[in-house]
């Protein structure tokens, strides 16, 4: 069985995106039986500029796992300092054998084909690798895979329910919470966890009165900016990211003011 046979066909969203970008080629491509894996490759290869970033955005925002690759298990003895790790990724149990040096980020990307989590700086300074570990946002680039035995990891690939986007994903699209899309998986995972932290009444450095803990925290833009400061966006989409999070947090549409961010 080759890899193409395992991959699902294009989703409606993807067909639509393709149609918008390359209307004359759509029928031919679908007739030829192009699948998602080809689709994403094609979108990246088709040219620079518009198509390249559109496809990056498509991969970040609409991303869902490709057909799972059966994990290759090794005897830990055959890898120097090999460690067997059993953990849950996006709800599914996984068993991997890793070199003790392998980070959770590299394990997700290189061993499990979950390339949504991005390696930006690899030093805990940018937040592009943010995933949710046992319910909390963490940096997967500074987490050893070996230390994740028995833990539960949620990555950007597990944020949507099937094709039903998470409200934070919908809001990022609505408010243009990205340009190049590279930091977006980390931004979204961070924002999803942030909303839970606010529900718990967790404080931040800009919280007015730390001694008062009265139920869920209502977050101002200043609060959201402070709480999202671990996620850097080189394109500077910050006002849009903050607006997207604020809409989901407050349940109300947010007026975007380009002067007062």
């Amino acid at each position, binding site marked *: 069985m080759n890899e193409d046979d395992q991959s699902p066909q294009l989703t409606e969203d993807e067909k639509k995106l393709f149609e918008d970008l390359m209307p004359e080629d759509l029928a031919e491509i679908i007739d030829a039986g192009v699948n998602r894996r080809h689709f994403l490759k094609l979108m990246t290869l088709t040219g620079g500029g518009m198509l390249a970033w559109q496809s990056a955005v498509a991969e970040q925002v609409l991303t869902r796992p490709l057909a799972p690759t059966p994990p290759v298990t090794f005897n830990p003895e055959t890898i120097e300092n090999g460690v067997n790790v059993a953990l849950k990724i996006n709800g599914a149990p996984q068993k991997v054998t890793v070199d*003790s040096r392998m980070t959770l980020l590299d394990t997700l990307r290189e061993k499990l084909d979950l390339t949504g989590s991005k390696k930006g700086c690899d030093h805990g300074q940018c937040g592009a690798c943010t995933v949710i570990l046992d319910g909390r*946002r963490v*940096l997967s680039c500074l987490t050893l895979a070996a*230390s994740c035995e028995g833990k539960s990891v949620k990555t950007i690939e597990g944020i949507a329910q099937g094709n039903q986007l998470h409200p934070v994903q919908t809001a990022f699209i609505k408010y243009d919470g990205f340009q190049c899309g590279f930091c977006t998986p980390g931004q979204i995972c961070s924002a999803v966890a942030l909303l839970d932290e606010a529900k718990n009444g967790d404080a931040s*450095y800009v919280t007015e*009165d730390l*001694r008062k803990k009265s139920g869920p925290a209502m977050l101002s833009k200043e609060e959201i900016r402070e709480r999202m400061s671990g996620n850097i966006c080189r394109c500077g989409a910050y006002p849009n990211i903050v607006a997207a999070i604020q809409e989901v947090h407050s349940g109300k549409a947010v007026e975007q003011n380009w002067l007062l961010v």
Partner: protein
Amino acid sequence: MRPFKYTNAKDVPSALKLAAGNPNARFLAGGTNLLDLMKEDVERPDELIDITRLGLTQIKATGSGGISIGGLGRNTDAANHPLVRQHYPLLSQAILAGASGQIRNMATNGGNLLQRTRCPYFYDVAMPCNKREPGSGCGAMEGINRMHAIFGWSEKCIAVFPSDMAVALAALDAVVKITNASGEERVVDFADFHRLPGDMPEKDTNLSHGDLITSIEIPKNNLADHSYYLKVRDRASYAFALVSVAAAFEMKGNLISKVRIAMGGVAHKPWRAMKAEQMLIGKEPTEANFKLAANAEMADAKPLEHNKFKVELGSRSIVRALQMALNGGKS
């Protein structure tokens, strides 16, 4: 990263035994600083002992009215614990001023105290650094030293200690409880926990190999009504301090009866501003008195080529932090 053996400690005795058996082993808790330094080839352990499953995460009131914070609890949990927020808001604020939400979810309270300096010459293995490689020289002394120390430095090292949490703990007279490799417990005053560089900048603290921080204790105090942690940095959030000030005081009538001031970003350890504290005892909390005390403290500063601004900044930051503390943390 160099190869290392990963071992999982099941309980405190087994962690201590594993450490005692290998002088090149290191404990792994949050890993946010250690793994980064291993990627940079600054730290080179051949074994990591994972101590995150030992427990030691509890936060509870002590018999004497203080609080005990588990050494392996996460920074986020310490900052948000109701007892800490209610009675030690200075500590909550300092923790929340540090790093990012993600890093505070990973970093442990003990590990926070053991993070290394972010001096770029320490991080760059192509540069000389007495802290990384004793005897190799100090790249920062003749280099770019804008972020470096103005108090307590030596010819060997001008690096600053980066933790915010530790600055608040210094102000709150905390003690650190430690179990050594043979299982013996000891209690170290916070002032004696970290070191000034002197002739041995490679030693940040007075811990020995195999020492495990089991908890941090803060005695009961009445500083919560008037406390504030001010952090001044190059960007609004997620950056190390140029200067930070933990300020807290207690009033009797309209006079200051007890005061604690500690500074970050100015020395190789949290810097208690004892001179300023002494000048404020028995005084009214006025801007003029704050300024006199701050200027007296900063008069002893010895700035380097690129950080002369820290003297005036330090002085103004002390005044500002005391004013915020006076107003219950509000400007």
